[in-house]
């Protein structure tokens, strides 16, 4: 089987359509299982009570927000270097999901911070760099959406994503340093060295669910982009509907 065949958007379109249910269904099941374990089986934390349970969505969201940025930059870079349209489409598709998870991690972080730290927002190094990551996503999305020519949008986005990826560690360390300069004690998110087994399981299940969800949603969106951009893809739409 020639896998390179699927680098062509028109060939990838029906394949993606077949793959999506294999990710979407487990995602839905695991979300259900993870939330059940998280809410009903995992014991309350002895310091934070039930408030810690938002961790089950907060931690996967923060994780994916960071990871998807790197993945997006890799796809954008591949698309630019090898002139691979599908990779560029994947990058634009990932950017929305990544921004969504980054935003979600900020919001859930604020909801978690209020009962445990007594404040919605702290200029903590991790939170500040997550906020900046959201700004970088917004920059990428707004640059791509204000360029009408899709080829130019792909390449311009790739340059921006690669410049951003080089800057992410610099920003992260400078923010961390700025933070230690301003306030002496940083707040540790998990005070306890170990977490209870069922807590860990709930988190891992939720992480897997978020992963599967991301793959499914990214593929659904990339299919929409293919239909938008590739005229001759329309016959595949007709053939598969």
């Amino acid at each position, binding site marked *: 089987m020639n896998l390179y065949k699927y680098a062509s958007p028109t060939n990838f379109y029906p394949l993606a359509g077949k793959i999506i249910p294999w990710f979407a269904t487990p995602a839905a099941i695991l979300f259900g299982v993870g939330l059940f374990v998280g809410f009903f089986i995992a014991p309350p934390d002895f310091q934070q009570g039930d408030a810690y349970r938002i961790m089950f969505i907060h931690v996967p969201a923060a994780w994916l927000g960071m990871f998807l940025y790197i993945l997006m930059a890799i796809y954008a870079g591949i698309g630019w270097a090898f002139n691979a349209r599908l990779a560029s489409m994947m990058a634009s598709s990932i950017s929305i999901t990544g921004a969504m998870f980054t935003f979600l991690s900020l919001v859930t972080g604020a909801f978690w911070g209020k009962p445990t730290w007594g404040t919605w927002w702290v200029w903590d190094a991790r939170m500040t760099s997550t906020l*900046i990551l959201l*700004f*970088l996503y*917004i*920059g990428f999305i*707004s*640059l791509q959406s*204000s*360029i009408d020519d899709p080829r*130019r949008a792909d*390449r*311009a986005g790739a*340059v*921006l994503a*690669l*410049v*951003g990826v*080089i*800057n992410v560690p*610099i*920003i992260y360390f*400078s*923010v961390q*340093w*700025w933070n230690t*300069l301003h306030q002496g004690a940083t707040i540790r998110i998990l005070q306890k060295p170990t977490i209870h087994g069922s807590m860990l399981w709930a988190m891992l299940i939720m992480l897997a669910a978020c992963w599967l969800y991301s793959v499914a949603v990214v593929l659904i969106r990339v299919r929409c982009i293919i239909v938008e951009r590739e005229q001759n893809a329309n016959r595949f739409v007709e053939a598969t509907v």
Partner: protein
Amino acid sequence: MLRWIVWRDLILAWRRRADALSTLFFFVIVVSLFPLGIGPETELLRSIAPGVVWVAALLASMLSLGRLFANDYQDGTLEQLLMTPQPLYLVVFGKVAAQWLTSELPLICIAPLLGVQFGLSNQTLRVLIVTLILGTPVLSLIGSVGAALTLGLRSSSVLISILVLPLYIPVLIFGAGAVEASIIGLSPVSHLYLLSALTVLALIFAPWATAAALRISVE
């Protein structure tokens, strides 16, 4: 070639003096607004001065970035420059250098005056100047990537700010941090070293990224 581009851009800037001056006045006005908004307490003003001057410098550099390639793009000069046998790196470098000389250097010259308004000591003023000299080239260099990417787009001036301002954050942190360290009596040297490291990195990589972005935008 490099000298020719810098010289040409300086002449063009001289013929449109109002543009460079408006950037300068914008900087002065933004900095002067803060005491009016916050209150005239000397202690408070002194502690916020580094941040205020640096944030105003970031915003002022946004104004001049829109012009960096736009005029050359509109009259077709940029296309000719892209076709020269010279490395595009040098072309970009020359244009950025000219932009720094016309838009950022006046800010550095006026900054001590604004520092005096905020009650900074002579020692601190000197640190402020050094941070601006080290840091503003990074603003011009990173900004040139944003200017090249947004060339000819509808809302390019707003877009540049969204793209570039988050990337300026390390410069802001170390620039303002050095001045702040000097206000509270610490040595600003470590901040200055890091700021110089950023400058070197930007000098090496940014013109390259700008050159790639220009090729994408003009084709």
